[in-house]
């Protein structure tokens, strides 16, 4: 009988090995359709990353465009203002008698120390300064273009609070009051007064031309023009550009799962998605805003996110792990883990167990970089934010209860296999800030976070976590 039993397999093999049978035509039709679908999916996948990149580029481009528009708008306003002020100055110059008008091809700024009190000197004013010290008057100033100065009285100018800025500076004068205007996008705007009681009606002071010649010099300064040798310096009390926000955000977490090409596993994206539920998740952190101008700011800082996902009752099977040891493998959205219950330390391949009350916890520290656009309306500030975050895995933990017959055991895995140490996510949010005091504001910022890269590799599925959180916090001005 044994011989016959042995033979029967060979007989089946020889009889059926060369067997051929034509399938029905609908099989090719189905294959044809599937190939079309696969091509579409392939194209979609291919462009998914490109779409994400494009989205970020568009965000950055929009931010840049708005920034440039804002600059342009402010420049236009400034030009208009200068034009009006220049008109007044020109009127003054027109009234000046020709003998009082001095034009210097190359003007020299005279040091105040060398200028005796009460001495009438016609010198060009304004100039550029190489920012090596706070007291600019100790340096030599010169202009590339002719300077125009008219007046009968001694005019002495001191430049202080030298600070690098971009673009042109404009200094104009209007009778007794001289105004110095900086580029509006860059704080501070200085105004200084010519304290010159003896200034005559015909006196005028025009630095517009000279300061225009300074375009390349990228600087700003405060100007004091005083008839009195005792000069006074206008101090610049610049407000800080930094704001610090502390926040907490309860999150509604979700994920999108994609099947990974891992063979011989009983799970797939659909099964895993069905078997898992997100539990309470949250994000907290400290963010620093750096104000670029009235509307724009850069944001960065540190966030800490915590995501909890529960897994329903599930059957797991014993398989060989990477080292060849046979253990029970549990596949889930974040990765996988190998378990060995104490009541069955040596399972055979294919043995099964049931796991209940399983939760996996993921914790990340994120470094976000975002661009913010702010519109101030009284005590309220409306803010829109977009950026990216680099997220570093700090903890991946799995807790499960294993059951087999009367045996029951709680197992904890402190390392989830397949998790990447770093992943990138996008951020977008719009919110409101309410000013409580000069230094303190309340912040409410609903924020969406979406993964740009998967959090795992080599697992049954690729997981892209997304979340929507209502961030609440306080903002402190320094």
């Amino acid at each position, binding site marked *: *009988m044994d011989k*016959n*039993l042995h*033979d*029967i*397999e060979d*007989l*089946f*093999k020889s*009889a*059926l*090995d060369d*067997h*051929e*049978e*034509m*399938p*029905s035509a*609908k*099989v*090719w039709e*189905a*294959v*044809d359709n*599937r*190939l079309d679908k*696969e*091509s579409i999916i392939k194209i979609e996948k291919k462009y998914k990353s490109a779409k994400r990149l494009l989205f970020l580029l568009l965000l950055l481009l929009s931010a840049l465009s708005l920034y440039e528009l804002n600059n342009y708008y402010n420049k236009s306003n400034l030009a208009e203002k200068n034009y009006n002020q220049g008109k007044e100055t020109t009127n003054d110059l027109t009234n000046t008698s020709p003998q009082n008008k001095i034009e210097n091809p190359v003007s020299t700024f005279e040091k105040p120390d060398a200028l005796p009190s009460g001495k009438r000197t016609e010198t060009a004013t304004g100039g550029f300064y190489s920012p090596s010290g706070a007291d600019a008057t100790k340096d030599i100033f010169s202009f590339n273009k002719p300077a125009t100065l008219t007046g009968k009285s001694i005019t002495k100018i001191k430049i202080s609070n030298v600070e690098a800025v971009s673009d042109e500076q404009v200094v104009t004068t209007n009778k007794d009051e001289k105004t110095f205007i900086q580029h509006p996008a860059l704080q501070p705007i200085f105004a200084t007064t010519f304290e010159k009681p003896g200034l005559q009606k015909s006196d005028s002071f025009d630095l517009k031309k000279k300061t225009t010649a300074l375009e390349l010099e990228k600087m700003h300064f405060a100007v004091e023009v005083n008839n009195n040798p005792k000069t006074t310096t206008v101090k610049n009390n610049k407000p800080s550009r930094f704001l610090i926000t502390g926040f907490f955000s309860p999150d509604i977490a979700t994920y999108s799962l994609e099947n990974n090409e891992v*063979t*011989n596993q*009983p799970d797939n994206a659909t099964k895993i998605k069905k078997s898992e539920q997100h539990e309470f998740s949250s994000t907290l952190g400290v963010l620093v805003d750096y104000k670029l101008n009235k509307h724009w700011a850069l944001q960065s800082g540190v966030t800490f996110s915590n995501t909890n996902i529960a897994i329903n009752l599930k*059957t797991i*099977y*014993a*398989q*060989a792990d990477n080292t060849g040891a046979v253990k029970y493998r549990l596949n889930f959205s974040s990765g996988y883990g190998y378990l060995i219950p104490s009541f069955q330390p040596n399972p*055979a*391949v*294919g*043995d*099964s167990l049931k796991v209940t009350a399983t939760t996996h916890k993921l914790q990340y520290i994120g470094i976000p970089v975002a661009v913010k656009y702010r519109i101030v309306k009284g005590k309220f500030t409306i803010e829109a934010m977009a950026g990216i975050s680099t997220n570093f895995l700090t903890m991946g933990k799995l807790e499960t209860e294993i059951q087999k017959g009367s045996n029951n055991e709680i197992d904890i895995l402190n390392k989830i296999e397949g998790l990447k140490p770093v992943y990138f996510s996008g951020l977008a949010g719009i919110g409101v800030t309410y000013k409580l005091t000069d230094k303190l504001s309340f912040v409410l910022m609903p924020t969406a976070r979406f993964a740009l890269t998967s959090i795992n590799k080599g697992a049954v599925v690729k997981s892209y976590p997304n979340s929507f959180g209502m961030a609440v916090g306080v903002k402190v001005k320094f």
Partner: protein
Amino acid sequence: MVKPFYYLEQETQLIQACINRDRQSQNQLYAVLAPKMFAVCLRYCKNHEEAEEVLQEGFVQVFKSLKNYKYQGSFEGWVRKIMVYSAIQYYRSKTKLHPVIYMRTSMEEPAEKEETLSQLGKKELLKMIQALPPAYRMVFNLYVFEGMKHREIAEHLGISEGTSKSNFFDAKLILQKAVANSLKIAKINY
């Protein structure tokens, strides 16, 4: 049998065209291989419908994986391997991996002589395999037709080696009984 050079060249060209997603070439490749592969699928499945599903999935996988084919060994063998893995995947998705316990009610009669088996048609033998419980059918096919060891079968199906051996033994008993019954009927009819 060694294939003539011109055939190999044609095969390579056809594969290349399929990699380039030329649908006509894909259809041509399907037409050449489908009858053989369908026979493989039929052995792993309980009926034509299931076999067609596996064949469809297998061919989709073949076309997707063609770029990974290294032109080493027989192309037909490579495709056949994919079909077998598709069948295993199908089996795993449809059934839980619990071993099937087959209770033997009586000692089966042994098959008479090898020659007598040839009296049975291929379709009849195929039906006997298809009538096996899924786990037995998988183990029997993998062992007999793919030449796998029980350890390999255990790994592929996610069962223990002992289960694989036991399933194979039981499958043979069932087939032997089925063959004996068929021969008995054939004799009566004759």
